């Protein structure tokens, strides 16, 4: 690694410095656009007591579900964890703590963490359990609550094409939480399906500028599908 080149040579190096008790922000929605190889590496490393910030918790045997299996997660900050049965069990057993956060608020908390905005007001969650312990305030005639930014010791994201400087493009809806997650890590690690030379991507079409990326690694993706839905022949006409 020298100059603006972020490429690291192996997954050990990609997650060097990850320690027990750290907070990890992960991109992805369901199993779409998750940094699946980096997650697998965390399981391999066996790092414990992690706080994971991610919209979902994977499924039982893939994605972040792997880290639940191996009981590496202390706390999960997510908007929806309904696809993961292990999650329920660990929650009831008191092994796991969960902080349910509305999806848009979660995305904005990550963005704010990366953008130096310590807190913002949102109407989302006003008057609900989410508002418990939070300041509420009226602007105009509407009620809002104060939500604070989230930052991670590490942020893990999954890109489609990235150049060596870490400038990255996400594919289709695999974009989701990745651009915000990428901004919110003290150390941001990106796995990419394709790595190209600087200059090969259109500068005006970069989703994540390389300034946010500290380490880059190539990762072949399995890309599991959670809900395989197809059009019936009758509709396909």
């Amino acid at each position, binding site marked *: 690694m020298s100059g603006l080149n972020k490429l690291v040579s192996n997954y050990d190096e990609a997650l060097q410095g990850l320690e027990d008790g750290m907070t990890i922000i992960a991109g992805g929605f369901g199993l779409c656009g998750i940094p699946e190889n980096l997650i697998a590496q965390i399981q391999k490393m066996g790092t414990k007591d992690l706080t994971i910030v991610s919209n979902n918790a994977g499924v039982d045997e893939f994605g972040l579900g792997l880290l639940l299996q191996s009981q590496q997660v202390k706390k999960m900050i997510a908007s929806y964890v309904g696809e993961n049965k292990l999650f329920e069990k660990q929650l009831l057993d008191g092994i796991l703590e969960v902080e349910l956060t*509305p999806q*848009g608020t979660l995305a904005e908390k990550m963005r704010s963490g990366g953008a130096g905005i310590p807190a913002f007001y949102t109407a989302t969650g006003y008057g609900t359990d989410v508002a418990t312990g939070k300041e509420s305030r009226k602007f105009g005639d509407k009620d809002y609550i104060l939500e604070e930014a989230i930052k991670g010791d590490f942020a893990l994201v999954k890109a489609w094409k990235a150049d060596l400087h870490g400038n990255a493009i996400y594919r289709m809806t695999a974009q989701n939480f990745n651009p915000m997650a990428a901004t919110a890590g003290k150390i941001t690690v990106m796995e990419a399906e394709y790595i190209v030379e600087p200059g090969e991507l259109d500068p005006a079409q970069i989703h994540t500028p390389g300034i946010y990326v500290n380490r880059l690694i190539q990762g072949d993706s399995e890309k599991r599908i959670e*809900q*395989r839905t197809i059009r019936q022949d009758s509709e396909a006409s």
Partner: protein
Amino acid sequence: MALSREQIAQRVAREIQDGFYVNLGIGIPTLVSNYVPEDMEVSLHSENGLLGMGPFPAADEIDADLINAGKQTVTLNKGASIFSSAESFAMIRGGHVDLTVLGAFELDVLGNIASYMIPGKLIKGMGGAMDLVAGADNIIVTMMHADRHGNSKLLNKCTLPLTGVGCIKKVVTDLAYMKISEGKFYLIERAPGTSVDEIISKTEGELVVSGNIPEMAL
């Protein structure tokens, strides 16, 4: 007779206007897309970061990187756009989505909605529902009027944890189309063959029935 799920969707679809950007929740709301009038052009918003969502793919079109908020594989219509979750919820929170349709467990006369959690059952999370109800101006809730035992789900006060406060103004149930304002339900239309008395008996919250209540046109 009570409406089927498809008929509820059909009634909701009549609230769509040409050029609308529409967010459809999981379940009955998803079915609404089947009943958009053919002479109208609408764009479907999916909160994982997609506008212009198309139908499910043919088997050979399936793309793991192209899903909707229900994690189902989908396709893109012409003029679609894809963006981050922050941008997606900027659209929702900023009131740019013209119509939001979502389900509920309970609704009350103050427009409060409970839709994401039943204590004692599995905690799944609110996903984007709290953002949707807080951010949208024009929301239609679809739900069953009463549970299996005939207990009303249209209440004076929600009993389950709330998804949002004072944000619901319209609901289509299997029995009726109602509006909510000033702390009351207003009966606007009844399902074909359903009597006003049945609706009254299955609505716990204060219900205003004014004049002759027409049957829904479906």
